[in-house]
């Protein structure tokens, strides 16, 4: 095959690889788990998102996931499913500490929060050590 032809072919492949990744729409709800004892993201932390039904007050499971190397878990919920209501994020923190060979004071952490305006974005970090944790509404 001629060099010219090879160059042409290479041009085809490169332009295909230039396709931007079609990331889906970003979840309106996000989290970020941080191990503040070590100053690193809390990776491989299992978590689950629930919404509370009304009027039964029963918790319905929406998503389960696990944090990535950056302590995040994209795709928690879609815009369509994100309606007003009371939600709960449950983090399997004791499993996490055990997986790195440590005991912990809290068997899990549950954060219950109220979404009154689902048009906004909500970022709910969890900063944790073996004997403490904190959370806040971030951005």
């Amino acid at each position, binding site marked *: 095959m001629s060099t010219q032809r090879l160059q042409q072919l290479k041009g085809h492949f490169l332009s295909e690889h230039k396709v931007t990744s079609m990331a889906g729409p970003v979840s309106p709800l996000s989290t970020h788990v941080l191990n503040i004892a070590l100053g690193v993201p809390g990776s491989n932390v299992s978590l689950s998102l629930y919404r509370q039904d009304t009027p039964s007050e029963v918790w319905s499971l929406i998503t389960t996931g696990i944090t990535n190397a950056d302590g995040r878990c994209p795709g928690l919920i879609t815009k369509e499913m994100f309606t007003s209501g*009371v939600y709960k994020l449950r983090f399997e923190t*004791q499993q996490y500490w055990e997986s790195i060979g440590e005991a912990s*004071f*809290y*068997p*899990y*952490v*549950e*954060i*219950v*929060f*109220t979404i*009154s305006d689902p048009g906004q974005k909500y970022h709910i970090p969890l*900063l944790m*050590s073996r*004997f*403490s*944790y*904190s*959370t*806040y*509404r971030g951005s």
Partner: protein
Amino acid sequence: ISPLTTHVLNIAEGAPATRMALSLHRLDHNTKIWNMLTVGTTNTDGRCPGLISRAGFTPGTYKLRFETGQYWDSLGQTAFYPYVEVVFTFKEPDQRFHIPLLLSRFSYSTYRGS
């Protein structure tokens, strides 16, 4: 003195969170049901003495539930969390724990203190 104490602080105001309702529960490991042990209300210092007796505080899994939503409501404010539950566990008997809750309308933190 109760071997379990708490202290609720309104860090937005830099003051104790007074008159906040709270309850202590113990998990029955067989039935997985939470049994309520005590209900109380924080005093002017944000504390709630007498949560549990020495004899009653056996190793296990406990939950302190703070009625934070009601508290902010009583101050005429909205808040992000309808309540806060802190679940903790211990295996060795004869331990004491101090579990503060530092709170604003959009954040909270807790730790094992002394």
